[in-house]
C-alpha cells in the first residue's frame, strides 16, 4: 500500500513538473511558430535562440504588482484563476503516457490512475475550467470582463454537447470508457480511431479548440473587442495562472486527442513517451497554426456554428456509428 502511494505521488510530481515546463515552453513554441509564420524572428535574446524566454517571463510576472481592483469581489477574484487552472491539470490523472515499465525493480504503469470511466472523467473535469472564466469575468467588476465571462460560459455550454458526442463514436467502437484500454485497442496504425471515426475526429478537434478558447474561438478574451475579456483586470501571478491554465488545457486536449484517436503512446522504434510527446506537439502546432491564420468568429455566429452545424453532425456521427456496430 505504502509502495503504491509513494509511486503514485512520485508520478504526480513528475507529471506536474513536466507539465509546468511544457506549459512554459508552449508559450515559447507559440511565439516562435507564429513569428516564423509572420515573417518575424520571435524571442531571441534570453539565452540561446531565446530559449530562456519563458523563464524570464515567469520571473517578470512574479515580481509584478499583484493588483486587485477596488470593485472586485475579492474572494471570487482570488479563487477564479485557481479554478481555471486546477481542472486542466486533473485531466492528466487518467491520461496514459507510456506503456508499463520496470524501474528499479518496481512495475510502474504509465498512467496515474487507470480509472474505468476515464473518458467521462476527462469530459467532467475538463469543462470545470470554465467556472474560472465566469467567476473571473463576474468578480472583476469591469464591464468588459463581464462580457468576456458571459461569452465564455455561453460558448462552453454550446460546445460541450458536441464535444462529448464526438467522443461517443470511439466509446461505442471500443466498448469501454477506460483510456488505457482504448490505447491498447489501437495497436497498429490501421487500428487508430482517426481512420474509423474521421468525422468524429474533426468534430473533436473543432470542439476542443472552442473548449480551450483558442483562436478562432477565442471570444472570451478577444483582445481587439473586449481588451482581453475576462482577465483584463488581472495582473502578476494571477494573470499568468490563467495562462498556465490555458496552455495546460491545450496540452490536456492534445493528450486526450492522441489517446482517443491517434493511438496514444504507441508507435514504432521510439520510446512510448516520445511518441506521446510528438502527437501532442502536432495538436499544439495545429492550434498555433490556426491562430496565425484565421479571423475570429462573432458571438452569434459561434453559437449558430455550434448548435446548427457541429451538434447535428455529432449526433449523426453517433447514430451512424451505432448503426454500423449493430449490423
Amino acid at each position, binding site marked *: 500500500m505504502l509502495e503504491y502511494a509513494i509511486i503514485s505521488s512520485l508520478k504526480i510530481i513528475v507529471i506536474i513538473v513536466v507539465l509546468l515546463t511544457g506549459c512554459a515552453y508552449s508559450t515559447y513554441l507559440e511565439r516562435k511558430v507564429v513569428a516564423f509564420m509572420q515573417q518575424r524572428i520571435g524571442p531571441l535574446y534570453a539565452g540561446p535562440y531565446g530559449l530562456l524566454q519563458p523563464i524570464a517571463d515567469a520571473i517578470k510576472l512574479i515580481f509584478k504588482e499583484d493588483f486587485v481592483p477596488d470593485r472586485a469581489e475579492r474572494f471570487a477574484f482570488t479563487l477564479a484563476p485557481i479554478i481555471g487552472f486546477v481542472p486542466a491539470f486533473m485531466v492528466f490523472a487518467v491520461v496514459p503516457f507510456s506503456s508499463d515499465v520496470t524501474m528499479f525493480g518496481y512495475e510502474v504503469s504509465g498512467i496515474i490512475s487507470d480509472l474505468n470511466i476515464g473518458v467521462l472523467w476527462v469530459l467532467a473535469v475538463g469543462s470545470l475550467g470554465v467556472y474560472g472564466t465566469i467567476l473571473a469575468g463576474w468578480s472583476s467588476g469591469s464591464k468588459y470582463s463581464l462580457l468576456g465571462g458571459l461569452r465564455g460560459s455561453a460558448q462552453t455550454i454550446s460546445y460541450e454537447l458536441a464535444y462529448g458526442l464526438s467522443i461517443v463514436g470511439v466509446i461505442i467502437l471500443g466498448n469501454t470508457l477506460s483510456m488505457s484500454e482504448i490505447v491498447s485497442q489501437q495497436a497498429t496504425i490501421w487500428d487508430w480511431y482517426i481512420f474509423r471515426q474521421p468525422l468524429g475526429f474533426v468534430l473533436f478537434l473543432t470542439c476542443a479548440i472552442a473548449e480551450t478558447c483558442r*483562436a478562432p474561438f477565442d471570444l472570451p478574451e478577444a483582445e481587439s473587442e473586449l481588451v482581453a475579456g475576462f482577465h483584463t483586470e488581472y495582473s502578476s501571478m494571477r494573470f499568468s495562472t490563467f495562462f498556465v491554465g490555458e496552455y495546460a488545457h491545450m496540452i490536456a486536449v492534445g493528450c486526450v486527442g492522441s489517446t482517443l484517436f491517434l493511438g496514444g503512446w504507441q508507435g514504432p522504434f521510439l520510446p512510448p513517451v516520445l511518441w506521446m510527446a510528438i502527437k501532442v506537439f502536432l495538436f499544439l502546432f495545429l492550434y498555433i497554426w490556426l491562430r496565425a491564420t484565421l*479571423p475570429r468568429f462573432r458571438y452569434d455566429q459561434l453559437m449558430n456554428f455550434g448548435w446548427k452545424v457541429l451538434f447535428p453532425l455529432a449526433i449523426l456521427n453517433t447514430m451512424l456509428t451505432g448503426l454500423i456496430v449493430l449490423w
Partner: protein
Amino acid sequence: MKKKTITVNMGPQHPATHGVLRVELEIDGETVVKARPVIGYLHTGIEKTMESKLYYKAIPCTDRMDYLSPMSNNLGYCLAVEKLMGIEVPEKVKWARVLLAELTRIQSHLVWLGTHALDLGAMSMVLYAFREREMVVDIYEACGGQRMMTTYFRIGGLANDLPPEFETLVRKFLKEMPKRLKDYEKLLTLNPIFIQRTKDIAVVSAEDAINWSLSGPMLRGSGVKRDLRKDEPYSGYENFDFDIALGQNGDSYDRYLLRLEEIRQSLRIIQQAIDGMPEGPYRAHVPGVVLPPKEEVLHKMESLIFHYKIITEGFKPPRGSFYQGIEAPKGELGFYISSDGTNKPNRVRVRPPSFINLAALPLMIEGGLVADVICAIGTVDIVLGEVDR
C-alpha cells in the same frame, strides 16, 4: 419587464479604435442599442497653426494630419496654394506627384487592410501588409529622406529631384505587389469566417452615403460612382488610364474588395507614370514664389536674392479664397485657403475625409453586435490625427 442596458466606453484607450477614438456604447447584452462617437482626444490645432505660418512653412503640418498618407496631404495643400497663386507646374512634377500619391494610396490601404484584419482576429495579415508597406516607405525615404512625415512636395514643385534609384525601387515594387495581393486574397477573400464577419455588416445605402456626404471607398462601396481623379481631374490625372472600383451592397466586405481593387488600379497608374515619366525641371520657374534650384542660388545674384526673400518673408498671394479637393486614400481631402493679401493665410480649413466618414458610424453600428462595432470602425478607415486636426 423593463430592459436594462449598460453603458460601455469603448476607448479612448482601446486596441481596436485606431488611436484615441472613444465610442460610448449603450448595450443590451451584446447588442448595441445606441452609439455615440466622441472625438477630440488628439486635437493638435493644426489648422490654427497653419494660419500663423508662411505659406510654404505650413506643408509639414499637413503631413501630420493623416500620417498614413503624407504625400496626398502635401499634394492637396500644394495644389490649393498653386491655384491661389496661379502657378503652372512642369509636366515632370505632375507625373511624379501622381506616382507618389498613388503609392501613398497603396500604402494607406495596406495599413488599413492589416489593421482591419487584425481587429477581426486575423493577426498575421498586419505583418504581411506592413512588409509590403515597407517597400513604399523605402521609396519615400529615397525621395525626401523621411519615411513617414515626408514633406516632399513644395509649392510649385518638389523638394528635390527624384533620386537616381527611384525607378529601380518603384519597378521592384510593381513586380512584387501583385504577387502579394494574390496571397492576401488567398488568406481573406474566400475565408468563410472573414466573409461572415464582414458581409452585410456596417451597411451604408447609396442614399445614406450621399446624405452623410461620405467620400472615398465609403461612398464608392455603396455603388456611387464619384472619384475626383476622374470627375475633377487635378495634377494631370486625365492623362492616365484607370478604372474606378465600385461596390454594390455598401457593406464591409464590398469595401474590402473595393480597396484591394483600388490597389490594383493604383499599380496600373504607377506603371504608366514610371514608363512615361517626362524629363524636365522639378520645380516651376516662378521668381519670388518658388525657390530657384540650389546650383543657381550659388552662382546667380538674382536667384540668391529670391531665395533669401522667399525663405525670410515668403510670398503674398492676391486676396481671395480657393478650394482644392483631391481624392485622398480615405476620401475627398479638401483645402480651403482664404488669403487677405499678407504672407500668411487668413484661414486654412481642411475637409477631412476621416472626420466626415466617421460621422456615419452610429448609422452603421446601431442594432449590431459589439463585435460589429470593431468591424465598422475598421471599415471606415479613420486616422485620428485627421479627425481631430
